[in-house]
């Protein structure tokens, strides 16, 4: 067997960025001279990375999921009210939350595919509905409390290693494995050219729904970790949807679908979190954080677009016949 670890197309740049950030952290922050510092960073980044993985499935198949932020808030508020501080409730509450995430994803997916509403609008509508409905249910502010056993996943650890880091690793490995399977590859192909997938006999609708379901499920998981880490809050999910999309794009995944790897998306999320930690350590004012986020966002997309162009001209020179059609299809999808 001559199998060797191979990086998916476009993963290298974000990994380089990530390594540079992590090394810089070691020089700047005294806590990053030992593993504990990095473990703390991973623990903190876990919810965003998991959200980014979920968002990746939707984006790579050509959609958007703007509802994940409000889904996180809704899940945390629901958890607090149902758990009501009793450890006995933890099991079924977690199951119910995951089911809720799954259901929200299913609704997003079904409306997108069956009613032909663009995912941007469906998930924007879902954002509004979730934001309103959950506080309508609890009369405006979170109620109840989270049981200690519920919070273990986001707060506790297995020895020195936080549970959330282990869960994070599990999610990333499972996602990478999934994307290597036939279904995963068809999902990417779907974002690249839906008609081709349909003609090849792929279940286009079912795949799209699957992407939204995974995104909803992972958002619920992220909510469990966030609630565990920091407790009940009414604004826990605020702005997470845009941050997750930023992370995915930073990982070189192209909006509109068809390009990018899930590991790169996860690395993008981790880079974003590492960058914020770094900015904080070197004393950049919190007010400028969003400006920095904006600049790297544009830079990342521009770099990805130009890198792709370079690669394409190169490929066309090497294998001229037969590649022109594919390149044109890409162009139309931009």
């Amino acid at each position: 067997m001559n199998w060797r670890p191979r990086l998916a197309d476009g993963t290298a740049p974000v990994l380089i960025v990530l390594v540079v950030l992590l090394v810089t952290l070691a020089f700047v922050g005294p806590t990053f001279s030992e593993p504990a510092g990095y473990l703390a960073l991973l623990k903190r980044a876990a919810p965003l990375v998991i959200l980014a993985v979920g968002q990746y499935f939707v984006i790579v198949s050509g959609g958007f999921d703007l509802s994940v932020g409000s889904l996180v808030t809704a899940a945390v508020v629901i958890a607090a009210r149902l758990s009501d501080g009793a450890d006995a409730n933890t099991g079924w509450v977690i199951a119910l939350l995951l089911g809720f995430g799954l259901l929200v994803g299913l609704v997003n997916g079904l409306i997108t595919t069956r009613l032909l509403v663009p995912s941007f609008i469906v998930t924007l509508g879902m954002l509004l509905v979730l934001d309103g409905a959950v506080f309508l249910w609890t009369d405006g502010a979170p109620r109840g409390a989270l049981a200690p056993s519920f919070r273990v996943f986001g707060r506790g650890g297995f020895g020195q290693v936080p549970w959330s880091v282990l869960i994070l690793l599990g999610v990333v490995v499972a996602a990478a494995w999934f994307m290597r399977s036939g279904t995963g590859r068809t999902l990417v192909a779907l974002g690249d050219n839906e008609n081709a997938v349909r003609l090849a006999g792929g279940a286009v609708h079912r795949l799209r729904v699957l992407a939204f379901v995974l995104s909803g499920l992972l958002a619920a998981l992220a909510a469990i970790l966030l609630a565990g880490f920091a407790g009940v809050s009414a604004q826990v999910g605020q702005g997470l949807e845009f941050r997750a999309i930023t992370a995915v794009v930073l990982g070189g995944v192209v909006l509109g679908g068809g390009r990018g790897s899930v590991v790169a998306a996860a690395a993008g999320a981790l880079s974003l979190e590492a960058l914020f930690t770094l900015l904080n350590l070197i004393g950049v004012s919190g007010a400028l954080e969003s400006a920095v986020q904006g600049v790297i966002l544009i830079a990342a997309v521009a770099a990805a677009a130009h890198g792709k162009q370079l690669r394409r001209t190169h490929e066309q020179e090497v294998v001229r016949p037969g590649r022109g059609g594919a390149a044109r299809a890409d162009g139309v999808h931009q």
Partner: protein
Amino acid sequence: MTLVRRRLTITPTVTVYLALAALLVIGSILVGANGGVLLDQSGILNILTRSTLLGLVAIGQTMVIVTGSLDLSVAYLAGLCSLVTAETMAGRTSMMVPGVLLALAVAAVVGLINGLVITVLKANAFIATLGVALILRGYLEHNYTGPAGSVPRAFQHLGYDRIGPVPVSALLVLLIGTAVWWFSRRTRTGYHLYAVGGDTEVARLSGVRTSRTIVTAHVLCASMAGLAGVLLAARLGSGAPYAGTDAGYDLESIAAAVLGGAVLTGGRGGVVGTIGGVLILATLDTVFDDLAVDPFLKDVVRGVVLVAAVALYARHRLSRRSS
């Protein structure tokens, strides 16, 4: 041929105004049953005032949406331009014209940057304008701690005067809406906007300068957001960094345009439909206020209305295509 079909088919624009009429009737009945009047002087004033600023932003947003783009930076831009207006004027009547012009110039430059990032750097419009929005937000958060500057009293009349139940600013927006409608439907550049949104490749092959068209749309959209900032300053008396984002101009303007029949992939939609969409949102708000509906329920209804409307249009297009 097209004329005949247009008369027979129910376009999204027609649907929007039918829905608006239905909403006004149902709203009047509900409010009436509750012991109030929906469409009295203050009710009409209310609906129109609520429509004015969002309407302006949404008209601009429609122009970028028909080219297949979108602009998420409008909310922060409106806040920025309200500050530019109020700080330039600093209470001086003599600086009213320079204040407005400077705000519009700043807006146009931001629109130009949006357009160039999309066309030259080849960034997806969502990301490009989200990035610009974040940069504007960083600038605002770093430099402002709250309202700043002040507009002279004479300028505040723009925000407060009305003729009967119609605010002067609403008339101004209507005038601008008419101009943009004329531009988009009766000029060559306007035609190009729709061509680029319909199919970029076909437009390019038939000789349309697609990049220039997209940049034009973004400059136009940003200018509208800038003008909304100017009107905000007239109404608030000073510049307010987050007035645009608090009002949710970014996502709400997109929602209004889509409610009015615009399609996010481009090529469809228009000013008339968008204004209908804005009026529906404003009427819903006013009816809810009159009925003292829980604010959280408003969000739920807004979300459902948005998705239902778009589903309806999609179904309609599909049935027309297959027939």
